[in-house]
């Protein structure tokens, strides 16, 4: 069987993967209906493939992919937990997929109820007062949250507040989002304990500071012990606190950003709340805010009057819309299902178990790899392959070697402040068995680095695809095959 063809190479003239009803209205000339000038001259060179071959093509492609159900996927910062099948079933119910966003309110009460209840649960989990489900992903939530931050200062006539402080450990989306809202980014260094340096923070503060963006636990997997003090400092300086909720899997039922002092939060439903990652998305990035910021939330907001839900657009302080319609509903629905399935106790158990798993791995690997911060971690931790450097082995090599053992590697080279970083997040859905075996393999690789570094440096050796020429790809980009498809 030929396994490495593009769909365009499978295409055969006249083959069909579709069927359509015959036209049951009198046919008119397309020329006349559209006007000759408007007509397409050369048809788009799309493939022509029978249904059987469409399916085989994608099944074949799928077999070149690795999902959570394929095996352990400890991709740090991404919370690659199990995606419950019941949620997939429910998200595909006709009653939810086949609803038009502009149907009248009375015909979409089900969707609105799901959204409104999900908002309630997210409030409870975050300690925030109001929620908007509109943002489509974490970064989009950041953007929205920062718009609110900016709007707040604008309304307070503090137009000079155009700087946002962001730790050097932060995810790249944080500074990028800040830029997209016209903020200047002030980088704050992480100290030796993996925490914020409070003195340095204080030194940065003046009346140009709009606020602080923080991930807590941080991308190092470390919980900021002084968070209350930090929030007081920022608030006293007239700034707001933004909470990047990507790491919420560590704290559910234990603490919440509201208690920590944050004003704005985003959630990643595709992380903490088990919605599938879809090969890169779609996700869902709702935001929550404290009461004083509620009026700035995007329109519309879901309200309820006399047991009827409705969408409220009349909000003159709102920042406006950040996306068409109301959010990625089918992901919100999955999150609803997840939260209801876990329940209050279950969600707390999630965080406890996730944190235990991470600490367990970290501890068991500390004699084999450098652990940059000698303290307990939360739901993930970062190790450094710097001790392996002397054998000529990099974090990249170790990651690739894990492929040989059938694992999805951890996140590589992030956060940037850790040399040769490998960021490991096991999540709570993995068993001790799986984790023990992963630890064994990591130890084995550590030994290989010493004893047989070549096998690590040449990895992956057992996979269908070997290392790729990534540099070449970027130097002379081939971003589609339009040029080599025949019509």
């Amino acid at each position, binding site marked *: 069987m030929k396994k490495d063809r*593009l769909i365009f190479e499978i295409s055969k003239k006249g083959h069909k993967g*579709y069927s359509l*009803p015959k036209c049951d*209205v009198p046919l008119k000339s397309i020329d006349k*209906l*559209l006007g000759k000038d408007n007509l*397409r001259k050369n*048809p788009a*060179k*799309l*493939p022509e493939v029978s249904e059987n071959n469409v399916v085989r093509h994608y*099944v074949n492609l799928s077999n*070149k*992919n690795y*999902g*959570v*159900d394929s095996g352990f996927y400890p991709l740090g910062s991404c919370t690659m937990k199990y995606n419950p099948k019941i949620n*997939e079933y429910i998200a595909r119910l006709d009653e939810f*997929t*086949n*609803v038009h*966003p502009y149907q*009248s309110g009375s015909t979409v009460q089900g969707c609105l109820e799901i959204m409104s209840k999900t908002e309630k649960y997210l409030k409870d*989990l975050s*300690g925030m007062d109001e929620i908007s489900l509109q943002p489509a*992903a974490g*970064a989009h939530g950041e953007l929205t949250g920062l*718009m609110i931050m900016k709007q707040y200062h604008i309304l307070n006539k503090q137009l000079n507040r155009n700087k946002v402080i962001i730790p050097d450990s932060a*995810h790249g*989306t944080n500074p990028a989002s800040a*830029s997209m809202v016209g903020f200047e980014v002030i980088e704050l260094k992480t100290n030796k304990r993996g925490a914020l340096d409070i003195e340095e923070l204080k030194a940065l503060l003046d009346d140009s500071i709009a606020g602080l963006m923080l991930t807590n636990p941080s991308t190092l997997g470390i*919980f900021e012990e002084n968070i209350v003090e930090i929030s007081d400092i920022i608030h006293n300086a007239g700034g707001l606190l933004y909470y990047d909720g990507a790491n919420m899997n560590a704290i559910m039922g*234990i*603490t919440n950003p509201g208690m920590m002092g944050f004003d704005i939060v985003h959630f990643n439903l595709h992380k903490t709340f088990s919605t599938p*990652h879809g090969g*890169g*998305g*779609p996700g869902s990035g709702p935001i929550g805010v404290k009461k004083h910021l509620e009026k700035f939330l995007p329109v519309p907001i879901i309200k309820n009057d006399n047991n009827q839900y409705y969408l409220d657009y009349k909000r003159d302080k709102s920042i406006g819309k*950040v*996306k*068409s319609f109301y959010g990625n*509903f089918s992901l919100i629905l999955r999150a609803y299902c997840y939260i209801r399935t876990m329940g*209050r106790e279950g969600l*707390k158990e999630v965080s406890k178990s996730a*944190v*235990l798993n991470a600490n367990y791995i970290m*501890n068991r690997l500390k004699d084999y790899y450098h652990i940059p911060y000698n303290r307990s971690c939360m739901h993930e931790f970062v190790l450094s392959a710097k001790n392996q450097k002397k054998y000529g082995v990099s974090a990249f090599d170790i*990651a690739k070697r894990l492929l040989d053992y059938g694992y*999805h590697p951890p996140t*590589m080279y992030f956060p940037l402040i850790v040399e040769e970083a490998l960021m490991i997040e096991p999540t*709570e859905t993995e*068993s*001790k068995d799986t984790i023990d075996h992963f630890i064994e393999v990591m130890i084995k690789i550590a030994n290989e680095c010493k004893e047989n570094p070549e096998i690590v440096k040449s990895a992956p050796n057992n996979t269908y*695809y070997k*290392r*790729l020429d*990534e540099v070449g790809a970027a130097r002379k980009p081939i*971003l*589609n095959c*339009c040029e080599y498809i025949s019509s």
Partner: protein
Amino acid sequence: MNKYIPKNNDETNKMMEKIGIDENDLFKDVNINIRIDKLNIPEEFSEIELLNDVRKIANKNSTINQLTCFLGAGVYDHYIPSVIDDIISRQEFYTSYTSYQPEISQGNLQAIFEYQTMICELTGMEVTNSSMYDGATATAEAMNMACNLKNKNKVLISQSVHPETVEVVKTYGKYLNKEINEFQLDDFGGVNIEDLESKISDETGAVIIQSPNFFGIIENISKISDIVHKNKAYLIVIVDPLSLAILEPAGSLGADITVGDGQVLGNSLNFGGPHLGFFSTSKKLMRKMPGRLVGETKDKEGKRAFVLTIQTREQHIRREKATSNICSNHALNALIASIYLTTMGKEGIIEVANLCLQKAHYLYDLLISTNLFEPVFKNTFFKEFTLKYKKDGKKLNEFLYKNNILGGYLVENIYPKMKGYYLIAVTEKRTREDMDNFVNLITRNF
């Protein structure tokens, strides 16, 4: 024990013991005064209970399988081939994440590479990224890109662009101090060229139009393009990708950036999301575009392979200097579009487009003949059109709903001046019987 947390007490204890901690150590960095007592979320549901609960809620929705849908306004009831859900239900696709490890992600990478190719084919552009959240955010990103490239901050957007897109563009623009102005419709339902000419200047960075526009009308893109480029601005065109099966693509008519929503390419309505934003531009502008890009390369053994590329544009490398903050995108929706375009193929999408075209015109003529509606725009339309309903549109829709029909979009809800304007979409799924029934019902009752 919880079915999603595979750990018995014994294992928990062993793990703690092994690393020398007890339960209290787990959250020791979390100060006691920020601990919470307990959550207020309800107690856990079993699958049986969850299904009972959700089915009860689901029944409060009416769906377009129960209603005959003539509603569009940006989201359309097109046919979705059955293979799509079959394929995207493979865990290898939907449970994986961004292809950071190309050796075990060639499935996603190749599928997206093929997607990028197919969207380029449709739009007539040279480069397409791997996806954006939706058409509106893609437009806003296009505006940012265009303004950055031109180093200008004035933007003109047509009033015939979808109102939600206009709003999103304005929101994004507001915080980057963009000056966003609208230009008018003309009597034909398209861009008022004079108004555009009067508002555009060499300070304008980007001009945004949509074709077919919100009212269904096909714009004269090349004429607009001439004006825009004369003023050294970039032209951003929002398109319905299905229309490009039979309409000359914006790429051939002068668009610098073509964006749009790919919901029509096999994505469900989903009460508004997730849909799919696509983003296409020229090779020249490629290195300034937002979003992930998949490129072709080879593996060590010379096998053709694909990889995320030109990542120096992106947030995880360039941070605050990135071309966008986008990270997770709508990859699965792009996969859906890819399967859709593969399944329909070269001939199928022309057939779909033509069915929409023919049926929309059939209904248009019928409705005009009832004398209850009158034409408002004279220009050419594709699958959606605007008429003026002479009576109360809200009542009409309520009546239709009782007869299991989902009526058109009441434009006056958003543009109060357009009283009675009624926007109707007709897709290939509507039968002549559906339409005759619709019209008969109205004539008999109004």
